[in-house]
Structures are given as structure tokens and as C-alpha cells.
């Protein structure tokens, strides 16, 4: 298996490099546009590099751009988003891991049907469920609150996360769980002491998917979070929608990028584990 550059290998590398370019184009466009001045954008092509590194669009998008009547950029929604994201992802992952473990390794009657039932709900656009959910939430007294928006994220996020954890846990040897039982560990002790420490890779897969979903959500935040907890995406939509004078594409792109940054950074920081998690069986049949 010596790695000479045969024509076949050159072809493979060419294919991979062209594909990589395809994947990088939109990112390139967003980043370079956010660094250009308005005049540059109007004058040139989106594929040109900016003439100078100008981060003013970034600072403006973050702190001074006007959204409707407020001119504080998209920063005010940031901490709301963090709150919502941390709580939703934390609870979802915890519940999904417990449930996935229960479905994969313990005797649960009709476990296949339960899983199918949970998953079916993931095939409908959630918009049609808004009304009923708002009614239910207001009866429960959590409409327009942090608890409400977190609950709705958990509700819509759970099916796929449970599936991911279940698929991972089903590949754990059953004897491991039996050994823990002989050692006297109950369900929770087995879960926390033995299973959870083994789940780092799959947790990263689930976390990236969950954070992406929650962080990028707009409509659920708008409707369920209440006025005090509106997430950053609402601010972003406002910024892009509030166009005073000439559209400032650089500010829009900077705001878009800033908003997309947390899940992106999470991914870049742990992307290797993501692939490992997938390899470890987080996503399979």
C-alpha cells in the first residue's frame, strides 16, 4: 500500500478539493462580505477579497445597529439565547440520554413502538402545533416564559436525540450493565457512574445537533419565550429587516455570522469527536 500519486489518486484528491471548495464558497462569501465596506459590496463581485480588514460592520452589528427603535445591535438577545440554549440543550440531552439508555438496555414492553411513536411527531412541521401548545401552556401557566420556551424546545428536540442515544447505547455490551447490577448499582447509579462517562462522543453529536436547532430557532422563541426572553435570532431578523437607507449587507452578514458563531465554534472545537461519535454508532440503523 505505498502511496504513489497514481492517476486514480490524483482524481480522488481533485474530487475532494473541488468538493471542499463547494463547501467553503458560502462561508467565504459571508465572511468576506462582512469585512467589506458598503461601497465595495456595491461595486464589486461577492467573490472578491475585501480591500482591507474592516471589522466595523461586526462592531456595528453587535452593538450599535438599529433594530426598529432600539440601536443596540443584536447583543441584547445574546444572553437570552444563551439561557434558552443552555437550559434546553441541558435538559434535552439529560432526558434523551436517560430515555435512550432505558430503551436500549432495559426491558421495556413495546420499546419499538414507543420509539416509533416518539419519532412520528418529528415528521410534522411544528407550526401547526403552535395553537394547541399555546393553549396548553397557558393552562399550565407557563406560556410566555423561559420555562415555556425551554419546554417546547425539549418537546421538539427529544425524538431525534433519544434515537441517537438509543442507537449508541444499544451497542454497549449487555454484560456491562449486568456486571453493574451484580455490583449493586441501580438504574441511576449504572447510568451516572458507568454509562454516562462512556458517552462523551455521542453527547457531542447530540449536543451539536441540539445546540444548532435551539440556537437557530426563531419562531418558537418569538411565540413562547415572552417579551423578556426573546432570543438573538429575533434580533437578527429585525436587523436584516430594518433597513434604513441603503441596505448594509456587510452589517447583515456580520450579524448573521455573529449569530451563527456559537454553534459553529462548538462544532469547530469538537468536530473531531462528532465524527467519532457518529462512528461509535450514534447515528445508525
Amino acid at each position, binding site marked *: 500500500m505505498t502511496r504513489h500519486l497514481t492517476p486514480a489518486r490524483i482524481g480522488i484528491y481533485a474530487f475532494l478539493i473541488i468538493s471542499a471548495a463547494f463547501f467553503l464558497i458560502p462561508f467565504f462569501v459571508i465572511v468576506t462580505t462582512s469585512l467589506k465596506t458598503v461601497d465595495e459590496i*456595491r461595486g464589486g463581485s461577492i467573490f472578491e477579497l475585501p480591500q482591507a480588514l474592516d471589522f466595523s460592520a461586526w462592531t456595528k452589528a453587535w452593538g450599535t445597529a438599529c433594530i*426598529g427603535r432600539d440601536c443596540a445591535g443584536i447583543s441584547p438577545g445574546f444572553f437570552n439565547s444563551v439561557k434558552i440554549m443552555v437550559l434546553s440543550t441541558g435538559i434535552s440531552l439529560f432526558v434523551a440520554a436517560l430515555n435512550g439508555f432505558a430503551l436500549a438496555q432495559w426491558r421495556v414492553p413495546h420499546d419499538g413502538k414507543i420509539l416509533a411513536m416518539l419519532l412520528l411527531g418529528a415528521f410534522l412541521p411544528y407550526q401547526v402545533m403552535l395553537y394547541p401548545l399555546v393553549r396548553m401552556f397557558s393552562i399550565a401557566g407557563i406560556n410566555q416564559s423561559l420555562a415555556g420556551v425551554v419546554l417546547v424546545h425539549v418537546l421538539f428536540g427529544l425524538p431525534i436525540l433519544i434515537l441517537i442515544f438509543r442507537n449508541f447505547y444499544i451497542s454497549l455490551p449487555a454484560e456491562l450493565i449486568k456486571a453493574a447490577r451484580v455490583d449493586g448499582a441501580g438504574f441511576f447509579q449504572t447510568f451516572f457512574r458507568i454509562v454516562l462517562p462512556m458517552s462523551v462522543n455521542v453527547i457531542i453529536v447530540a449536543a451539536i445537533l441540539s445546540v444548532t436547532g435551539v440556537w437557530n430557532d426563531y419562531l418558537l422563541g418569538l*411565540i413562547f419565550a415572552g417579551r423578556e426572553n426573546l432570543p438573538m435570532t429575533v434580533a437578527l431578523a429585525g436587523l436584516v429587516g*430594518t433597513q434604513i*437607507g441603503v441596505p448594509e449587507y456587510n452589517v447583515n452578514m456580520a450579524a448573521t455570522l455573529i449569530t451563527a458563531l456559537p454553534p459553529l465554534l462548538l462544532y469547530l472545537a469538537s468536530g473531531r469527536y462528532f465524527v467519532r461519535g457518529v462512528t461509535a454508532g450514534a447515528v445508525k440503523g
Partner: protein
Amino acid sequence: MSKQIGLGVLCAVLMSGTAFAQSAPKVEVLHWLTAGAESAAIKVLADGVTARGGEWVDVATPGGGSDARALLATGLAGGNPAGVSFLGMGTETAELAAQGVMRDIGGYAREKGYLDSVPDYALAMGTDGTDDAAIYALPVAFETQNFMWYSKPVYAAAGLTPPTTWDEFLAQAPKLREAGFIPLAMGAQAWQINLLFNAIVLGEGAPYYDRLFVTHDETATTAPELVDAFRILRELSKLTDDGAPNRSWNDTLNLVAEGRAALQVMGSWAGAELGNMGKVYDTDWGCALSPGSPIVMVGATGFQFPKLNTPDGEAGQDIFIDTMMDPVVQTAFSVQKGSIPARTDADISGLSACSQLAAEAVRDGKGAPYTTGVLGSEVRGLLTDYLNNFWANGSITPEDGAAEYGRILSANS
């Protein structure tokens, strides 16, 4: 001019500054007026509410009317809607009023004398359609849909004058193209196509528009005028640039502002936006009624008031009503938004030339209602879908287009 009004508002703030109680009634205002000029107009209202001792809570849905309706509907479902909500007046107001979820503010407004100077047909758009005494929505301003915004430099460079009929424009188009300009600035989104088409129909004559949309005359749905309107729409669909699909109206307006396109048909709000872009009226751009339109197409921009169960809810709504029905505020609002004050006794001297032109037409009774005011949401949706499809599919002939459009209209009204 607008500075004077701003000063007036400022005075009001100062005078009522002492009225700031510890618990100022909250006024939650749901709206989607977030584009530059629109948000300046909202600011006028917000400042007015603050000056009157209310606490303005801004509930803006920048995504547009769809999200606002989602929030209103879920708010009503959850029992905690925003106290004031921006909405197109007309059939939608009536539908909500019929559900019994809206507050009848007729008594309060009448007592304060706010209704005396508002035209009757505008008031009618705030009722549930059965009882004229009960008022659920109030207009703050009138909008005009059928304006033509054109670029002065483009017409100067092409050696042409802005068209007065569609056929004249169609004849100009090749020359504009030759001179390197986009003849028609168009954002091909369903509602913009609909707006353009309604302007074309109005160009077929005010009586025809009336027969087709208002009095629902069956013969109008098969009339040659409709075929002609579709012919014009088909020709216009070829006169725009490749970037048109799904382009927002303000991005599109930028083409006119930058002197890349000759004209755009858009509502009165576009004028304010052009000013906001730093372009000068009569130097960079001009305005006129859309080609062939004898009259203005008028819609009321208003607010409605859901029933609230919070203690100071109605107090907050009352403060808002006081603010929005103040003629000074209405003028200031319209200056910003490029609309016309709803009260006929409001000062219009500060308005832009285009708005004044519309305001005079309204006062002379030369106004036709928006289709939103006269057609149900169901049929409007179907018509909009159809126009959208017609615009995109060049293979549909104007004859077929007119026939299908007429069929949808007569089958659903």
C-alpha cells in the same frame, strides 16, 4: 417641517413629564413596521405614548405580517395578547371582531370626539361589518398603493419622460434597455405582483376596478379589460432584471434610488424610504400615480385592540388611542411613513409632494379601496397565488390568465 412637529412632540413630553406615575400603564404594541422609515413612524407613536404617561412595550416581528399574526393569534389563544396590534383594516378586523376577542372602543373614541373627522368608509373598516356603532379598529393613516416611483437621472439619460399609460411604458422599455437600464424594478414576491396587478386593473379605469373588486359585477370577470390587464402584466414580467425573484421591496427600490432601474410601482411608504436612503425628491427621483390610474387606491393603516384582562390594560389602550388620534401625532407619523393622516383635519402641509397629491385625491373623494378592504382573505389568497404563478410561467397566455382569474373571483365572492 418635520422638525417642527418633532418639537411639538418634545413639548408634549416635557409638559406631561410630571405625569410619570410609578406604575405607568403598559401598552404592548404588536407591529411589523421595522423598515427604516416605518420604524421612524413607530417612534413617533412611542414617544407620544410615553409623553402621555404610558409605558411603551415594543413587540415587533421583523419577519413581517405572518409572524405578527402568529403572535396575535397565539396571544389570543393563550389569553395574553399584546394590547394593541397593527393590522390591515377591513375583512380581517371583522373576522376577529366576530370571534368576540376584540374590545369595542367605539364608546371611548366617540366620547373623546375622535371619530368626527375620520371618513366614514375608514370607520367602517374597523367594524365587524354588522354593527356600525361598535368600533374595533381605528385608522392612524391612509396608505396609497398605486404610486410609480421613477428615477429622474434614468429618464433624463434615456431622453424620455415618465409614462402616463402602460402602453406608453411598454413602448419606452426597449429604449430604456438600450440605454443600459432595467425598465421595471420589481421584486417578484406574491404580494408585490398582486400590488402591481391591482394598479394595472385600476389603470383600466376606476369604474372597472369598482365593478371587479368592490361591487362584484359578474360581467367584469369576463370583460376585455381583464384580458388587457393580463396582457400588460405579461409584458411587464419581461421587463425586469434577473435578480427579481424573491427580492424584498426595499432592495428593489434601491435599483431606482441608484439609477439602475427606471421605475417601480409601490405603495406610498416607498417615498419615505427613498428619503431615508438619502435621495432627493425631484432631483434623484419623482413620483406619480401608476400609469393610467385616474385615482388613488387607498387603504387604512390602523390598530386594533384585543380584550385584555390585565388591570391597567384598558388604561394603556386608552393612552394609545389618545396618542394615535392626536392630529399632530398623525401628521408626524405620516411624514415619517410617507402616508396621509387619517383625520381630515390634520395638517398636511408638512407632507411630501407625493403624499399631498394623494391626500388631496382622498379629500376629493377620488379614492378606491384596497382589495384587502373588500375581498375575503380566502379569495385574496387564491388570486395572489394565481398571479404569482402567472408572472413566473411565461407560457400562460393573457387570455387564459384572465379567464382563470375571473373564474376564481366569481366562484369565491
